[in-house]
């Protein structure tokens, strides 16, 4: 199989380059990450992140033939050759396929991704009914791989101000949680032309999410709640 992989070491290279690789591998039943691990045996200077190798940790998010995804759950057989691999767009490159996700996590932390509840802790858990718990489905599964946020043009233009789809999905995850008491503060924080309203429903986030979540829908629900609060 043929591969073209983005290579860049900011400390030594003047500019990034695409390097061609050939690998003798049977694509059937294998994932892209299997090929990358073999390529790294060939050329140990090739740098990438990986950990769980089963789509749970979100480490190996990258741009695969122009589309963001996780290498570990992308079947090799589905890829057109040469397979072009680039780092996630819109974030600074540390080396090759590894990007600096500081800005991504800064935005994630800005939405206070934890339950805010000022009641004294009960003897047991804070309970929810099955129906209340069901509201969190499609929200809590996010693994923060960054595929959605780095495919969003609004994030490319304003990474310092726009929270991005992953952060906004999590913002709604806590707004939707009946145990959380900070809905009003959370809405105040997002009632801003940049933080939430840079979203122009381009829906690249929905298109690429490896967990098939829908940040655009969550953003729409935040807007609905803001309208409901205002009128």
């Amino acid at each position, binding site marked *: 199989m043929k591969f073209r992989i983005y290579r860049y070491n900011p400390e030594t290279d003047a500019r990034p380059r695409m390097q061609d690789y050939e690998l003798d591998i049977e694509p059937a039943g294998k994932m892209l990450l299997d090929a990358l691990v073999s390529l790294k045996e060939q050329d140990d200077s090739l740098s990438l992140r990986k950990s769980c190798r089963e789509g749970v940790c979100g480490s190996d998010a990258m741009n695969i033939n122009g589309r963001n995804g996780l290498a570990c759950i992308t079947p090799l057989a589905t890829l057109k050759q040469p397979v072009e691999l680039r780092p996630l767009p819109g974030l600074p490159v540390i080396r090759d396929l590894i990007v600096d996700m500081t800005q991504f996590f800064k935005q994630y932390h800005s939405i206070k991704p934890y339950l805010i509840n000022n009641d004294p802790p009960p003897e047991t858990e804070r309970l929810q009914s099955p129906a209340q718990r069901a509201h969190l489905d499609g929200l809590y599964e996010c693994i923060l791989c960054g595929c959605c946020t780095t495919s969003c043009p609004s994030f490319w233009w304003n990474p310092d*101000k726009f929270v991005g789809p992953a952060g906004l999905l999590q913002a709604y995850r806590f707004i939707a949680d009946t145990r959380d008491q900070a809905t009003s503060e959370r809405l105040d*924080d*997002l009632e*801003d*032309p940049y*933080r*939430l309203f*840079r979203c*122009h429903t381009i829906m690249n986030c929905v298109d690429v999410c490896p967990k098939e979540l829908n940040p655009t829908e969550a953003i729409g629900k935040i807007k609905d709640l803001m*309208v409901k609060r205002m009128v």
Partner: protein
Amino acid sequence: MVNRVVVGAHYGLRDWLIQRVTAVVMAAGSLAMGIYILLHPDMGYDRWIALFSSQPVRAFALLFLLSLFYHAWVGVRDIVMDYVKPASVRLVIHVLVILALLLYSIWSVQILWGM
């Protein structure tokens, strides 16, 4: 002045909502105009003048145009916010766009009630 990332101008929802409402007004207006033209294949100067001599038609046409201008303001400002970073340049562009749109609004009244 320290260089800090500042967010929190509380007008996001208002403009987003107004952009939707003005879009509905424009969609209704375009549809009504399209149907009127389809129903009157002999559309000429006389019919056009007759149509716009009615005060409700003039009022709705003005509403349509004002919706268009406000919609355009939100859209153009969104583009400027994405691509023009220095606050001073942005302010100048905003003022110019607002002045142009105000001028268009006055001009619209003049055209509609001058027919």
